[in-house]
């Protein structure tokens, strides 16, 4: 078995055998869905039943997919990567004959798959109860792989950001800031169509929209396969950047000494 596949498998299994942590996350997801259902119901009611083409039910399915894609991913990877680099622990990982970033991302990918499966199941049921059936079954079918692509892009992006610690030697608490890039430019809290036009355009240029907005948009009923291509393109770019940042950072450590 390739080391990356083994890492992916290890990540998946280690998450499945920790039901307490999983239960907390799924409980949190349900609470988020209840809160967002209340918020968007009030917002749509105040605007004649629709916001930029989003109905109440469409918005709730949007929130479900966007949240599922984000909650599947470890939130503090940026900080953890920074700590490993800052503390020198990464030097031990560099002794292995595999890519440090590649193995890390494989492990986190396995973890994310386990959480995403649970989130789609639990969140899907909760959303069905809150909003009724999805606006489009076909679009929802496209949203499922989109959540996986979104989670993968998020993992790669966090490694690219965290890898900056090779130069700064500290990424403490910076995950707060990264997280907020997914919240608003990523469309997790509010669909991009509801933002002022200039901000919407800027957010569509950034990669964060592929992590939450795209799964949400698909689940809301817009069955546009081009959205998946948009995600796949950014995922490829982010993977190259993450691996490149780590490779350059590791070379720097090798030159300067860990």
């Amino acid at each position, binding site marked *: 078995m390739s080391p990356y596949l083994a890492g992916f498998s290890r990540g998946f299994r280690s998450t499945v055998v920790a039901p307490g942590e999983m239960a907390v996350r799924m409980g949190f997801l349900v609470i988020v869905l209840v809160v967002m259902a209340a918020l968007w*119901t009030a*917002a749509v009611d105040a605007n004649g039943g629709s916001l930029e083409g989003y109905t109440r039910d469409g918005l709730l399915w949007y929130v479900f997919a966007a949240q599922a894609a984000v909650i599947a991913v470890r939130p503090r990877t940026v900080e953890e990567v920074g700590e490993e680099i800052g503390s020198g622990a990464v030097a031990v990982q560099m002794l292995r004959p595999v890519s440090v970033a590649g193995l890390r991302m494989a492990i986190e990918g396995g973890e994310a798959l386990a959480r995403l499966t649970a989130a789609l199941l639990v969140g899907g049921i909760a959303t069905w109860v809150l909003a009724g059936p999805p606006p489009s079954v076909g679009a929802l079918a496209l949203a499922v792989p989109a959540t996986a692509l979104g989670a993968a892009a998020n993992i790669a992006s966090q490694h690219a950001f965290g890898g900056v610690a090779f130069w700064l030697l500290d990424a403490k608490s910076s995950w*707060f*800031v990264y997280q*907020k890039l997914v919240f*608003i430019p990523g469309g997790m809290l*509010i669909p991009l169509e509801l933002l*002022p036009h200039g901000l919407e355009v800027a957010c569509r240029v950034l990669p964060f929209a592929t992590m939450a907005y795209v799964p949400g948009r698909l689940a809301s009923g817009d069955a546009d396969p081009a959205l998946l291509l948009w995600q796949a393109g950014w995922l490829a770019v982010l993977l190259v950047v993450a691996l490149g940042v780590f490779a350059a950072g590791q070379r720097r450590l090798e030159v300067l000494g860990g």
Partner: protein
Amino acid sequence: MSAVAATLRTALADGWANRSSFGFQMLLMIVNDITWVLFWALFFNRVGTIRGWNPDDVYVLFSILLVSSGAALGLLANSRRIGQLAADGALDETLVLPVAALPHILTMRIDAALMGDLAFGPVLFLLAGHPTPERTALFVLGSLAGTVVLVGFLVATGALTLFVGGRGEQGDLGFNAILLFASYPLDIFGGATKVLLFTAVPAAFVTGLPARLVRDFDAATAALLLGMAAFFAVFGWAVFSLGLRRYSSGSVWMS
């Protein structure tokens, strides 16, 4: 100086020892808070007033939340870690001291990042809360009451670990639930959810009622808020004290 004040002073001095890190973490939390303010600005810009709540009302609610969570989770950082401390056997080091256990545990650690909330909350109120002497007094009163409710609730849910075991997962869920519900205007919720916010997850007493008081003072609401703050202070203390009777040493080997 009382033992509690001395413990808190030591915790503050410990956090302040690395000033650059302390300041950096506070700064990042303030950036985080500003992002939430931006979210509400964008939301209301597109949606308009919802169920009687306009942006300024929500900024007041958010500033109360920042002060309450900053005090409960920044100054009294262990309030959300009672379950984990119990599971790790880490209460031992407090139980051997000649001080009341709960106040000592609550004051022995601060969280620098969350002190950013405590700093930014009043600033947000001053900037967006239309402060008058009366509104400011109600803001302070509401924030204090909200802090007491939040700490009492977190201690109680964390202390459940002493009864049911685990590593405080129910405390984590309670923590996430109350902060999330407290972040949004009370009147968007209805039916069973609203009942929940006044009972099992008392987010209404952390931000909802305090914000309502700042907007429109009502003596009965103020009395209810203060009464619930007293109740949750006693409730948290009682659950922790009863749970402590079931606590057996973690037998943690220290080097």
